[in-house]
């Protein structure tokens, strides 16, 4: 019985748990609630995915208001996959967070912190699950506003400016999105995405619809930090509390990518977006610029969190590059990299959080010789780093394989060369970490450190183990991704 209402519960439970946290006013209880809710959401998302893969698209009418009048939650393999990613990362991050948040956030703010996290989770899950364009905007605002709070709670005062910067950029992005949605409503009289996809072909070539596409593309690109709209990201990642960085890196930009796919392929349709508009060329150019410029910038960073933040912008370049190829293999690469990079980068930020327990900022100078002091944590960072490079038997290799294949299928052999060349830049910045951690004598500060507690290591290593597991057994990731790619290209409406 209750399983029928899973689509609603997926969003409503964390949404209701957030105010409860505030009422509880107790750090421990708030954490326990966030933990229970997060794991429950993994179960819900997992069963939704299983159902979608077996029975096909699930349509859920919220409050029994039939679509297209009411709000419809519409779940297909693509967003079910994203729901699993978001809730799984959320659950692992929250399991990890207790000690880390104790250390990095002022105690009297803890219950607010967990409330903000739950709101953010609800917002991200909501964006992924809803089939209503305006509802997307609502959830986007819920997740964004709570994200600003979460970032601002970082212990470094610069977290405030970082949060403010993101607030400005994020608001501009949200405004663009709502303008786009408004234009679509103007032209079609509907907000339901499925309904939009039916009605748009009739007015496809009108100026307002094309303007809507432009507004939506730019607005979503801001949220997903597509180069050169990424400027908010490095600071936000660098100064947010460790667990927030991990959560955002693994989920927020990925949900935005999902949104881009949703609007491009479901609402507007591949023929218009990839065929008639010059979007593939623009996306390709920006993706390549991101891959190279941001990887090069990353190699010059001394703050490791910031280094990995720039690496994230570069990796987002891979994700959008897959879209621009417009081939099944390239799109498979996009979807699979969404997941693979999410878990890899999430794991890396969690491990950096372990190191941050003993030092104010995790810089290359501070982490000298840490390989001997915190061997388990550091070795995890090495494996995660290999995943970023795309060494075989890590998840990153699988993504890269599909992206290169996609470029070759499209006949862009030079793009294939560039993809591989840029992944060599990752070797450079990952190896700066390796050399600092293993070949430099430990400084005084590092020598006083101890290995992180198990409550942090276990979730972090669970994600590291997942990056290796999904590099060997790709039936779940690549299997679902290939199916999604096929659906997206097949005018999946």
């Amino acid at each position, binding site marked *: 019985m209750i399983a029928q209402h899973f689509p609603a519960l997926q969003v409503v439970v964390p949404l209701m748990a957030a105010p409860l946290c505030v009422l509880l006013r107790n750090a421990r209880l708030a954490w326990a609630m966030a933990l229970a809710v997060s794991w429950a959401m993994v179960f819900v998302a997992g069963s939704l995915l299983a159902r979608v893969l077996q029975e096909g698209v699930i349509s859920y009418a919220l409050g029994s208001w039939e679509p297209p009048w009411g709000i419809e939650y519409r779940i297909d393999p693509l967003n079910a996959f994203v729901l699993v990613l978001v809730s799984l990362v959320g659950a692992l991050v929250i399991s990890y967070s207790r000690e880390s948040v104790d250390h990095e956030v002022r105690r009297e703010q803890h219950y607010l912190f967990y409330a903000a996290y739950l709101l953010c989770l609800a917002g991200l899950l909501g964006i992924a699950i809803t089939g209503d364009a305006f509802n997307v905007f609502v959830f986007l605002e819920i997740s964004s506003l709570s994200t600003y709070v979460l970032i601002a709670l970082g212990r470094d005062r610069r977290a405030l400016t970082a949060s403010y910067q993101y607030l400005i950029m994020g608001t501009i992005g949200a405004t663009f999105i709502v303008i786009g949605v408004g234009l679509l409503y103007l032209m079609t009289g509907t907000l339901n995405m499925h309904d939009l996809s039916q009605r748009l072909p009739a007015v496809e070539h009108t100026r307002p619809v094309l303007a809507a596409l432009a507004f939506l593309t730019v607005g979503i690109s801001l949220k997903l930090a597509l180069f050169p709209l990424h400027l908010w990201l490095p600071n936000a990642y660098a100064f947010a509390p460790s667990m927030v960085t991990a959560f955002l890196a693994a989920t927020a930009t990925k949900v935005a990518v999902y949104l881009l796919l949703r609007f491009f392929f479901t609402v507007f349709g591949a023929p218009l977006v990839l065929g008639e508009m010059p979007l593939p060329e623009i996306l390709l150019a920006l993706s390549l610029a991101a891959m190279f410029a941001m990887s090069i910038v990353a190699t010059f960073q001394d703050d490791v969190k910031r280094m990995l933040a720039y690496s994230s912008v570069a990796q987002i370049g891979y994700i959008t590059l897959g879209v621009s190829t417009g081939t099944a293999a390239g799109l498979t690469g996009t979807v699979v990299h969404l997941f693979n990079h999410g878990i890899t980068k999430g794991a890396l930020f969690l491990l950096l959080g372990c190191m941050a327990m003993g030092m104010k900022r995790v810089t290359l100078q501070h982490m000298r010789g840490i390989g001997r002091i915190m061997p388990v944590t550091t070795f995890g960072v090495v494996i995660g780093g290999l995943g970023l490079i795309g060494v075989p038997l890590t998840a990153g290799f699988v993504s890269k394989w599909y992206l290169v294949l996609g470029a*070759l299928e499209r006949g862009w052999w030079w793009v*294939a060369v560039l993809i*591989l060349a840029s992944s060599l830049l990752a070797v450079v910045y990952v190896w700066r970490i390796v050399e600092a951690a293993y070949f430099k004598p430990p400084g005084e500060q590092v020598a006083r450190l101890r290995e992180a507690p198990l409550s942090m290591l276990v979730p972090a290593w669970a994600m590291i183990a997942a990056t290796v597991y999904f590099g060997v057994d790709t039936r779940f990731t*690549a299997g679902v991704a290939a199916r999604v790619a096929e659906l997206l290209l097949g005018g999946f409406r």
Partner: protein
Amino acid sequence: MSPAWAIAVPLVGAALIAATGARPNLRETVTLSTAVLLLGVVSSLVPDVMAGALPSAVLAEILPGIALRLEVEPLGMLFALIASGLWIVNSIYSIGYMRGNAEQNQTRFYVCFALALAATMGVAFAGNLLTLFVFYELLTLSTYPLVTHSGKPEAIAGGRTYLGILIGTSIGFLLLGMVWTWQMTGTLEFAPGGILEGKASNAMTGLLLALYMFGIGKAALMPFHRWLPAAMVAPTPVSALLHAVAVVKAGVFSVVKVIVYVFGVDNLARMHSADWLPFAAGFTIVMASLVALRSDNLKRRLAYSTVSQLSYVVLAAALLTPISIVGAALHISAHALGKITLFFAAGAIYTAAHKTEVSQLAGIGRRMPWTMGAFAIGALSMIGLPPFAGFLSKWYILQAAMGTGQTVAVAVIVLSTLLNAGYFLPIVYSAFFKAPAADVHGHGHGEAPLPILIAQTATAAGTVALFFFPGLFLGLAERLAGG
């Protein structure tokens, strides 16, 4: 027995070595027994392979349609036998060397060594290109901590070059070539006669071949050879087994394998897409020999000699005749035995006399007759004189070069033989016949520790034995060439 055991045994061994790290004697016992057990596992596969069977095992399915799969064919069998057999000898040597020089972090050293052997077995028994690539990369990564073992600035710099070139070529060229092959043919399986026939034009085949040949950086084809001299900062047992046998042979092994099973010998010969390869290999042979001639550092000279000798294998494979393929396969084993002996001797000299330069070796043969005797045997085998293993493989390659009328190849072989003699014989001569220079340090020394002597005598004897009893290796090589 499933070939997966050949990977499992050293992996379990590595775990046990890590667990017994606090008790060095027990730890070394574990290393030795693992090595012996591995040779047992590998040898148990020989009868099946000689009977024409291809024992195989699927480990996992990484990508749809491309499994991580092992399959033992004759060339892999030969490579695995060489690597696992020499691991036993090398482990004995390591005990003498690592203790004699009081090296740090010995547990990490033995663990990484076992991991590198597991990766080598994976390369040897890879059933398709993806599996080969996976283990090839794991071999690079597992040997990195061995190259940078000392942790000194020059070791870190060497490690950078090592990793930079090997990862750079494999991701930049090899992976690209592999994805391209998959895109064109829809398969990455190794098949007799190749998988590319009729799928690619002559020019594309040539380009693809270049991606593979330079992408397999471990074969050290110039200009991607610099990692090998850079790796010489490692402790000598690493240089001996990994950078004279396992790693570099993984490179040329992959080259032969790709030419035979991906491109197909007949296919390439028909298309003339590989006509440039003998020149690239010949250039590397001559240039590397010239560098070796001018190197005073002994290990560096040996490293450049390896670069040159590796290209013999590439040259032989590039001649594209059955007899040259036999020569290539034989040279993998002949060079392995000879070069490991030379490195063992170099390490023995370092351990006993703390000498690293060729110019310091005058008269050392009187104090270290066993060591320099082994060195002389290794050197003569490198030059290609009977009754040493090097003669056999050179004979086959020369025969193939003459048979195909490739005058350039013949000239390269003759010239490089002279150069080989030029940089090896003076060492032997001055060690035995020159008066020792006055020792500035003023300390006397005798022979190296016993484990070292045992090891180098064993490999030197092996070099001779392979000349007189090449049956098993020749049989495997002929099976390979016969398809």
